[in-house]
């Protein structure tokens, strides 16, 4: 199935892209989508350790399932200076 990953901030400056279209297997979780993105852009290998996933503009969990047509993103800590939250 097809999902679109939106890139911004560091994920954008390190890849030179604003979005990436990915094909993932049905039943893929947001963690699986992140792994597929890292395969495409190995420079983003830090996202699983650092980011919170978001699905269709809302924060989500790594174990949440992706669905066909989803807009997914991986959100680094924002600039305000909050401590890292639980990212599992």
């Amino acid at each position, binding site marked *: 199935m097809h999902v679109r990953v939106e890139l*911004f*901030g*560091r994920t954008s*400056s390190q890849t030179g892209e604003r979005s990436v279209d990915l094909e993932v297997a049905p039943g893929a979780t947001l963690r699986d989508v992140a792994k597929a993105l890292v395969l495409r852009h190995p420079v983003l290998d830090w996202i699983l350790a650092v980011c919170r996933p*978001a699905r269709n503009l809302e924060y989500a969990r790594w174990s949440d399932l992706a669905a066909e047509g989803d807009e997914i*993103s991986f959100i680094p800590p*924002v600039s*305000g*200076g909050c401590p*890292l939250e639980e990212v599992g």
Partner: protein
Amino acid sequence: MSSPILVQVIDTPLDPAPLVRFAEAPEMGAVVTFSGNVRNHNRGRQVEYLEYDAYRPMAERQLHAIAEEAVERWNCRIAIQHRLGRLEVGEPSVLVVAACAHRGDAFEACRFAIDTLKERVPIWKREVWEGGEVWIEGERDAPVSADGS
């Protein structure tokens, strides 16, 4: 009464005056304005300028959710604007204006909105100084380019 919420992510200089006019209402006896401005120093560095980037549709949605929560909790009228792009030292990057019947609630609503914005809204700043640049990610400095520079 008109909607109590105005939320915008914009690319042009910020001006508090129209936000104050939006928030004001006959029953609101207290109007608190917060302006977050670009500071000339950060973590021991002499900041030259900041470049803000956002996941814009999610940022707007999260800002709206914060404003709704503030209205729910403090019965306020509230306006929030965040600017993106290159900002020079001294320029405002974010404005929050909260209007309530009384000042205690207005201060609390304004404080809640800016604090929560800085935890939750997907907006980042790239800090540039003479000889270097980083993305500010929470407490961390993060490299801007793929080779770690």
